[in-house]
């Protein structure tokens, strides 16, 4: 059970937990947190599997990918929270399942 397996399998578990949260939780902020968990899990898998270089120095490409991934996750999270806040101030709801009201307008 070499070290890279511990981290990458751990990452996989975190990804799964995040996936459950994103799919199952009704509250929008919980969904955003779930998405972040999925992101962190993926990054852990990336870094874990990037550490298998024979010479011991970790492969720089996964690290670059993780850095880019982090920035993208920040962007997605910011947008998610902004929409959640705006949707809350518009309808007083914090989940998508209850329909704000009937009817529709163009």
């Amino acid at each position, binding site marked *: 059970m070499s070290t890279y397996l511990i981290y990458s399998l751990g990452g*996989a578990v975190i990804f799964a*937990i995040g996936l459950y949260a994103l*799919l199952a939780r009704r509250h929008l902020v919980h969904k955003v947190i779930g998405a972040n968990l999925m992101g962190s899990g993926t990054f852990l898998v990336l870094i874990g599997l990037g550490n298998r270089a024979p010479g011991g120095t970790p492969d720089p490409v996964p690290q670059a990918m993780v850095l880019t991934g982090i920035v993208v996750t920040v962007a997605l999270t910011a947008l998610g929270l*902004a929409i959640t806040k705006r949707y809350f101030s518009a309808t007083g709801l914090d989940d998508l399942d209850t329909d704000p009201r009937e009817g529709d307008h163009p």
Partner: protein
Amino acid sequence: MRDRLKIMPLLASLAALGIIATTIIGLPSTAPGLSAQMNANAETIGIKNVVTAVLLDFRGYDTLLEISVLMLATVAVLSLRVPPSESRRRLTGESGLLLGSLTRLLAPFMIVIAGFLVWVGSSGPGGAFQAGAVLGAGGILLALAGYDRPAWVRQSLIRVALTIGLLAFIAIALLPILNGGTLLEYPDSARKTLLLLLEGLLTLSIGASLASLFLASASRGQDGGGR
């Protein structure tokens, strides 16, 4: 509202976990990946921190799009904010003793750290994103402590600060095309200075972006906020 356990999402995530775990276990225990070529090329261009070399030079195009993602998110959050008239309430009242004095102590220190991170990026872990994050945090801290924007910082100046990093990156990317190179092909002579200039401006933009991402949606809200 307690969420009860939902079967379908549970099955989906367990299935995902199973597939991913078996794949990871099945992978060979040693795999060089691209580290050999990357290290070799990083030597030739003289950047000790290979990750920065990958981020800014070899896969600089990824970073260009990444900066665009961050700025796009800022524009998106700005487009979502409620018109300023409704949200004129300031974030908080006058700051308490602890927050006020702590901010006065930390703010200059954070700016120095940001500068250091930019400089060390070429040799050790650091660079534009890390420095930008520290700068952004400083900005948010100042706003939370109740320091309002100084008068000369008008809306247009903030927009320039937000885009200066991207505009610089585009300019530096187009430069080599004018004299025979391809996009983002830094001339060897000016590589170091160009990268440093680029990192500095990127830090400014990333700091401004992260701060406005927080402040744009936080500066209004029905219940919270000032007394």
